[in-house]
């Protein structure tokens, strides 16, 4: 039963089909892309249905020997975290395709290629989260860059080529550092386990000396910190997000960057527990810096570029995620994982709507908007709700995750949690200031007759908003899936009391 392989292969086949389509018939290409991605999403949900919550390890496991000489297997499998992130990707892809229906028009490259690249990317996203073989993971990790690179460089705007290259080099650099560590693991595993292996569960048996462990940990961590992105490895993100089309940005920030935080949990914590503990406090500090740094720069962007603004808010949010991960508490862990999902949705909403605003106004400057609430109420409302979820308003999904992260941190690092909590004030500012500038006030010149959301756009955004609200009240549905794995990874660290209140 290799359902994951099939799931991952579907979009790839779809993209192949797209390439075969005639260049001229763009509508057909779009429909095919939408159809395929929807089918995949449904299939994914179907698979998720028979996911056993009680099991902590990997499920739907597949394993085929690939390059025995290097101990490389084609190994797939999911635990709660991976499953949810895959579902996130599967749900967002059709939404993006629908939302960005006309995004690729007028680019230097053909429309069908755009959607084909999106589908390829979907495959990569499934693979990277489903891989249980570090090498396979690394492979998807690097391969992902290529479609994104072309999506930014081929369809972006402004400094697209430069941004694409910056993105690529940053990631490649990180990837190569990770490669160094992977080589290390390969050699160590061959010495200790007899035969080399990249199987995550196998590798946990290794016993590394402190120096090696720290060395290998850093290789992985920096790669993930660049992806995440954690301060000070973040500067590629705003440029990329600004240059990329909104759809690309959604997948980039919504899903791809989660690979970083995902990797920290999946690999850094499980493979290098001691190094994780050793570097934990430092990373906590970096996370706090990210939270505030991102927030302040987002506020600064509120008289600048709206896409940059959103990407800086994401940097702040990623700060929260890493904070939760390295708090080493059940709440922090589950909170961070839940945060990844929620942030996916809220950022998606923000970017899509911002994209529509920009497309209507032909400007991404926050100042150029204004009074949209009067002109385009629906657009304004959806943007406002998305913003509220980004500032973690109780009752919306992101509140639960953010709060869990903070509680989880408070248990182990009270001071850090207190400082982190101050971040919610800044969150209010970096959302409400742009909201006021762009939605409130008198209608700015040039906005008088902007069109409100059309049906397609409403259909695209509705599910996202619905999920944001729904998971605000029923996060337990997700948490039930997340908890077992999170608990396991924390108890594997065996690091003192992982939850408070038990004194």
């Amino acid at each position: 039963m290799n359902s994951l392989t099939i799931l991952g292969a579907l979009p790839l086949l779809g993209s192949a089909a797209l390439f075969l389509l005639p260049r001229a018939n763009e509508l057909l290409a779009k429909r095919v892309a939408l159809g395929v991605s929807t089918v995949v999403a449904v299939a994914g949900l179907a698979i998720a249905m028979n996911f056993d919550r009680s099991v902590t390890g990997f499920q739907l496991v597949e394993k085929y020997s690939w390059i025995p000489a290097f101990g490389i297997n084609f190994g797939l499998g999911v635990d709660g975290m991976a499953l949810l992130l895959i579902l996130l990707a599967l749900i967002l892809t059709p939404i993006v395709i629908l939302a960005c229906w006309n995004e690729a028009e007028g680019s230097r490259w053909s429309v069908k290629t755009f959607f084909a690249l999106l589908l390829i990317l979907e495959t990569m996203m499934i693979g990277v989260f489903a891989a249980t073989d570090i090498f396979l993971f690394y492979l998807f990790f690097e391969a992902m860059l290529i479609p994104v690179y072309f999506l930014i460089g081929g369809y972006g705007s402004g400094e697209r080529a430069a941004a694409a290259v910056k993105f690529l080099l940053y990631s490649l650099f990180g990837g190569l550092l990770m490669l160094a560590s992977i080589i290390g693991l390969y050699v160590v595993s061959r010495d200790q386990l007899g035969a080399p292996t990249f199987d995550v569960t196998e590798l946990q048996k290794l016993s590394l000396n402190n120096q090696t462990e720290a060395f290998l940990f850093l290789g992985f961590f920096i790669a993930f910190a660049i992806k995440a992105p954690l301060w000070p490895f973040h500067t590629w993100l705003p440029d990329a997000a600004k240059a990329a089309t909104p759809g690309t940005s959604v997948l980039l920030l919504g899903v791809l960057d989660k690979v970083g935080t995902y990797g920290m949990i999946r690999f850094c914590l499980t493979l290098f527990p001691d190094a994780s503990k050793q570097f934990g406090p430092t990373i906590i500090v970096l996370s706090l810096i990210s939270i505030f740094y991102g927030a302040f720069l987002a506020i600064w962007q509120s008289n600048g570029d709206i896409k940059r603004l959103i990407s800086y808010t994401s940097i702040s949010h990623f700060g929260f995620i890493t904070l939760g991960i390295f708090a080493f508490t059940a709440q922090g862990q589950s909170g961070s994982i839940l945060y990844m999902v929620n942030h996916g949705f809220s950022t998606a909403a923000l970017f899509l709507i911002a994209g529509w605003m920009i497309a209507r106004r032909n400007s991404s400057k926050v100042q150029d908007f204004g009074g949209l609430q009067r002109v385009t109420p629906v657009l304004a409302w959806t943007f406002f709700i998305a913003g509220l979820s980004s500032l973690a308003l109780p009752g919306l999904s992101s509140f639960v995750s953010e709060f869990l992260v903070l509680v989880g941190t408070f248990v182990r690092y009270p001071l850090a949690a207190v400082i982190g909590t101050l971040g919610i004030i800044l969150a209010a500012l970096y959302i409400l200031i742009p909201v006021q500038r762009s939605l409130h006030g008198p209608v700015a010149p040039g906005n008088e007759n902007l069109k409100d959301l059309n049906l397609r756009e409403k259909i695209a955004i509705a599910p996202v908003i619905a999920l944001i609200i729904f998971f605000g009240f029923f996060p337990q549905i997700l948490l039930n899936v997340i908890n077992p794995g999170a608990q396991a990874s924390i108890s594997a660290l065996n690091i003192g009391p992982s939850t408070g209140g038990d004194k």
Partner: protein
Amino acid sequence: MNGTSQMLVYLIAIPLFSATVLLLGSRALDKVGHIIGTLASTAAFVVGLLEFFAMLGRAPENRAVTQPLFTWIEVGNFNVGATLLLDQLSICFVLLITGVGTLIHIYSIAYMSHDKDRRRFFAFLNLFIAAMLLLVLGDSYLSLYVGWEGVGLASYLLIGFWNQKPAYATAAKKAFVANRVGDVGLSLAVMIAFVQFGSVSFSGVAEGVEAGKASSLALNCLGAALLLAAVGKSAQFPLQAWLGDAMAGPTPVSALIHAATMVTAGVYLISRSHFVFDVASVAQLLVVIVGAITLLFGAIIGMAKDDIKKALAASTMSQIGYMILATGLGPVGYAFAMMHLLTHGFFKAGMFLGAGSVMHGMNDEVDMRKYGALRKYMPVTFITFGLGYLAIIGVPPFAGFYSKDKIIEIALDAGGAKGIILGSITLLGAAITAFYMSRVMLMTFFGSKRWEADAHPHESPALMTIPMVILAIGSISAGFIFNLGDRFINFLNPVFHSDHSGHGEKEHLLPPIVVSALALTAVAIGVSIAIAKYGRGKSIPAVAPADVSVWTKVARRDLLQDDLNEALFMRPGQELTKALAIVDEKVIDGAVRGVGSLTLDVASGVRRTQTGFVRSYALWVIVGAVGILATIAVMSL
């Protein structure tokens, strides 16, 4: 122990549902939007009443009922259920919220009749009702948090209801941010509670405190955090600055949210957490101090305001100061705080509606200097407003007298110097209140006409006057009814576990009658000064005189709180932001780009070695050879 009730959820569900319908509904709903909204609120009120009578039907010790809905969050031992709790304390709020709320809905039908966005307005009102009910019905600090921010959101939306006016949008934002500062406190409180007691439900924390799970330091931190939350929401010092600007919202909003209900949430939070404050003496003292400062603060600002709504807002601030102060005075205080809260709910809401009615008649003029002699033109408004006025300054037998008098009393009884100071502050507050409320009264309804040319004052329609009348009746009777045989105190007793039965015989600093006498004298003084200044024959310039003492100027500027915040937080913040932006651009990204360009420079530098002269290449070969020889030689030494 507690019974359960299946109806509680409807309290929240009905208005929430109606709000959703009104928001998502099409323009077709514009016709009936206000009706739906009002009906929803009324329905909630009815449910509340039913629950109330059901409660009275039960024995005092098990009057509280709960309704578990579903598991909200469960991670490890962090377990929060979505459960509703209705006890004596919450029922008071439920009735206040739904009751006053309903009246204000009715009032708004007329007040907003000309606004094309009336449907949205009612949606927001319903949303507020729902959130506020969730706030008072949640059985844990986290559920309370949801309502807490929910009302914040509703208030944001309603203050900014006319957000096409930039100033209004800014006011809304200011309110939200100030509240967020308070929310930080609430978040921290929840975290501390969880870490200390492993639970965030009221009962759990209460038991934890009983069991002495937490150090007194922890408890005081918890208390301080809760206080911070209360300060933010209830516009207490030092976070009070937003309330004045919040008057940008439509007047019914000011009446409901920024007078009767939301701003009193802080009082609710502290009373709800009495079990913490009872044992956290430092935090409790802080509460008293904050209350004392604010009640004077508000009163002083109130004296300087010419904008009728702002004046009323200042008085709200000050009155809540009274309540907070009362809650800080331990078991005896909570009940009286609640009593004052309810009475205040009546008369302040009534007066705001009155103010709204005046504005309605004076085509939205708010400057009292442009009023005058309106009593003939708006009799009903005048009477209802007047009754509210008598109530607030604490003239017997009106509501305010009972509640405020009790607070002054217990303030004096606080014991020692504390008692003296607090007592005198409360008395002083009473005097100032009397002064500025009389000032409002005189400038608005008495004296000479100072209207704008186009003003044609007229009495408001029945839909507006009836709620005013009902509230006025409340402000007359409430205090008396509550106080009859301490029934209100006894009613709340099971919640606060503070046996008031003995409080009659308790040793007083001064006998109650003396206290009342003092209070009334203070009031008398205040009123007479006001009459002397603004009474018959005194001319009131149409524009506020500029040649006034620096104190007046300061008072007009809200005692410089805004300037202080500006100087302390906003400007440094903006500077920091600018600095960071430069850092990001120049330093961090600069470093990255620097590495890039550096490599390029190095490249073009090293490139020079490739001269094209074959002889120089040969030279490199020799250099290499010698190098290798040398290394080998060195190593083999």
